[in-house]
């Protein structure tokens, strides 16, 4: 770990502790988890752009590509109803109460005739003989009977009638994800080819990309928000959940505002004790569950780190970032390496778009992903990437992303009015970069003085 990485870790710690000092709840489990979640969602873009920055390039199209890939994901899923010829008999009808407390209609059917899923519809004649449609809200199996709850509260179903079943279907998710990733990588390939073969400037190429992909997202979606609704509930549930837990030191003491580790009971003015008379202690180590996106990021970060430090590709990328001509003279196929870097960057942006869509359940074609490229670039720079190319560390980039997110969340936690948000983040970044430069110069000057004495 180099000096720069230590610095960025310190900066993160300072932001977290300062905010927790003003508002202890900032370090409560749920807030720590939300920090990890957001860091992760943004982290994919940061890792991607780090590869491009290491080559000495830049990618400004990331945010637009996040939006576009989200749109393509939803559109390609092609959620629609597929009518069947299956007639389902209604065994019984009863009232039921939804989770939100609303009334709903529950219909009992025979699962041998149909096993409907959420969002499927049934067409039937209501009591007045009109054709009506009911959308499935929930299903439940019990005693060989299927209980289907409809979303429409005033639906009137008569027992002993027949309903026509329409299935709500979409294309298989793995296929759609593969397609979205393929399109993203193709976009990266085009960037790379334009930059290496036609020698266009990365800034210009990706600036055009920024406009084009945003526009494409709006055209494809007809500028309407695209939602996932209840589709892929299982995947989304998993994605929004947590994986394994890790012990984090001290956060419990801080977040409970209780720096003496024992629990103080204000009513009895004594430490709380258990049945055996021992003081109840707050655990120093708090087990915090890592959100799934955090685990995904961890895996990708490890892969990226291995790629950068343990493979020929990484070695060549750093070499050409330092000196493209010397790399060429050493027989490195610099064009291929640069193209690969842009493909990686766009793939990460595409992946990020998919994950943001899972997380938010919808895509706003005109705004989802806006300025994410700037967050990613800022995080990479904070993490030690030089825009001149040739240097960069994945650990630094991930922590850099965490710093950006921590700033956001702490502005919220400190109840600072929204309009100040960008001012504060901008100033904090400027200070961090300044401190980095100043410290570096001080260290160098010290070294020089020490050597002047001994030399």
């Amino acid at each position, binding site marked *: 770990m180099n000096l720069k990485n230590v610095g960025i870790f310190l900066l993160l710690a300072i932001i977290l502790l300062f905010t927790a000092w003003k508002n202890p709840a900032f370090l409560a489990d749920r807030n720590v988890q939300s920090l990890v979640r957001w860091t992760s969602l943004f982290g994919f873009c940061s890792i991607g752009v780090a590869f491009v920055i290491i080559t000495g390039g830049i990618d400004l199209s990331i945010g637009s590509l996040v939006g576009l890939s989200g749109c393509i994901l939803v559109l390609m899923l092609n959620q629609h109803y597929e009518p069947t010829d299956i007639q389902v008999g209604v065994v019984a009808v009863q009232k039921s109460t939804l989770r939100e407390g609303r009334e709903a209609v529950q219909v009992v059917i025979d699962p041998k005739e149909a096993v409907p899923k959420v969002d499927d519809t049934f067409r039937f004649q209501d009591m007045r003989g009109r054709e009506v449609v009911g959308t499935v809200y929930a299903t439940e199996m019990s005693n060989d009977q299927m209980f289907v709850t409809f979303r429409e509260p005033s639906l009137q179903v008569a027992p002993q009638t027949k309903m026509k079943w329409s299935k709500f279907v979409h294309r298989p998710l793995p296929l759609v994800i593969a397609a979205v990733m393929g399109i993203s990588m193709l976009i990266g390939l085009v960037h790379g080819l334009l930059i290496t073969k036609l020698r266009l400037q990365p800034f210009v190429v990706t600036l055009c990309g920024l406009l084009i992909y945003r526009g494409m997202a709006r055209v494809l979606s007809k500028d309407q928000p695209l939602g996932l609704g209840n589709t892929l509930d299982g995947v989304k549930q998993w994605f929004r959940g947590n994986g394994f837990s890790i012990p984090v030191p001290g956060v419990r003491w801080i977040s409970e505002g209780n720096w003496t580790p024992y629990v103080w009971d204000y009513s009895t003015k004594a430490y709380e004790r258990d049945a055996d008379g021992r003081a109840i202690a707050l655990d120093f180590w708090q087990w915090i569950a890592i959100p799934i996106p955090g685990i995904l990021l961890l895996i990708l970060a490890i892969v990226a780190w291995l790629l950068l430090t343990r*493979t020929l590709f990484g070695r060549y990328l750093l*070499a050409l970032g330092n000196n493209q001509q010397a790399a060429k*003279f050493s*027989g490195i196929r610099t064009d291929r390496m640069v193209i690969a870097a842009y493909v990686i960057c766009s793939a990460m942006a595409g992946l990020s778009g998919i994950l943001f869509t899972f997380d938010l359940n919808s895509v706003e074609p005109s705004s989802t992903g806006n300025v994410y490229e700037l967050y990613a670039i800022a995080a990479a720079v904070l993490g030690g990437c030089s825009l001149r190319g*040739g*240097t960069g560390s994945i650990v630094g980039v991930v922590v850099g992303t965490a710093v950006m997110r921590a700033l956001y969340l702490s502005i919220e936690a400190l109840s600072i009015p929204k309009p100040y948000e960008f001012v504060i983040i901008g100033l904090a970044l400027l200070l961090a970069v300044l401190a980095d430069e100043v410290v570096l110069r001080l260290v160098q000057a010290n070294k*020089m003085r020490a*050597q002047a004495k001994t030399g």
Partner: protein
Amino acid sequence: MAVRLKIHEITKSFPGVKALRGVSMDVMEGEVLAVIGENGAGKSTLMKILAGVQPPDSGELRWNDKPVSFSNTAESQACGISLIHQELNLAGNLSLAANIFLGREPHRFGWIDERAMHKEAAKYLEQVGLNVSTKTLAGELSIGQQQQVEIAKALSCNAKVLIMDEPTSSLSSGEAEKLFRLIVQLRERGVSVVYISHRLGEVARLADRVEVLRDGANAGRLNKQEINHQAMVRLMVGRELSQYFPHQAHPLRDVRLKVENLVVAGRVSHPVSFEVRGGEIVGMAGLVGAGRTEVLEALLGVRTALAGKVTVDGKSYTLGNPKAAIHAGLALVPEDRRHQGLMTPMSVEENLVVVSSDQRSRFGWLDRRGDRAAAQSQVEGLKIKTPHLQQTAAFLSGGNQQKIVFGKWILNKPKVLLLDEPTRGVDIGAKQEIYSLMEKLASEGVAILFVSSEMEEVLGMADRALVMHEGRITGELSRSQLSEEAIMELAVGGVAAH
């Protein structure tokens, strides 16, 4: 003659090195004082201190016997000292007049007085014998002409001491001649010229006195009548150089490199054909710009070849693809070490293994232990002076950097070694090591083709010489035919007298 600038006991340290340890010398009025020394002897540091680029740690400068100190270049210029850098510093997109008066433009009410500026500039251009319009853009001039503009600029600052750092390093011989005449004129006008050069022939010809630096200290001084090649070399290296060129004839093996009708985009428009045998060292002589570098670069594939066929050991490879050329067994130590040879911000190890690590790698994974061992073997074998393998290459001396470039290719076991000015910017000690290395590789059967602008290097090291002139090979000289005159005649376009 009076002492114009007295340099007294100047010291200066940088991280890791003591660049100057108490250097003293006098610059007289109207003399050419040559300052020579190996790379790293402290010449450049001393000149930077004189020019106000850096302050000294201790010591004193006296101008006309009055103590002076400069905290920036403007102050030293105001005093009368101008430094002409090895790399020229003109703004290519500005006119000559604008360049000469950059930052000092004659003005009235905040408007640049163009007419006065061009008039004045023309006067100074005339003084340096440059016959072009002051409205010409600096970028349109040749390197030699740009240098004249720099000198004109110095004169316009009323320079009394003109420091020239390696002024002929990128000049053709004709341009260099012009420069020498100008220097003599300046001296006659009472300007003191401090002349820094590696080219001892020029020094012997021009200098009134020579100051020799070694390891940041005075190693000796020579007066006009004492100046000769041997005396200078002795003072520079601190010992007599016996057997300067370790050349021996090796038994020649089969043809390893065969070039047929090669045409290169840019300079080499006439088809070039030649052969190099295993164990043979072939020198490529010619003036700067004759197309020698272009031939080497085209062979490696980093420059586009328009036509031609190249075979190594009888097998041809695709031109224009460095990877294929390297695979075929080619290696090129390029002319511009900092930009083409090394990734200077990266470590010694990374630089040494960059070509060969793909042979050790498995499925794209680096063999880190193997890489380290390979790098270590070259550091030991080539005696590369570095504290450790992770040292940043930029911090090494020119000679050690050049050894790294050699080392990275040796690790790839080349069949044909192409060398472009292999000893440029390398001190005498390292030069000899490089010559020995060439000998050793040749004795192992490597075919060596080297481009050199140093005549004595070609005479000393080549079994055979090819001479180029304006993009074509004008002649070929065997070792027995090699002489300075024969090479020169071919290099300026004559036909070899057989």
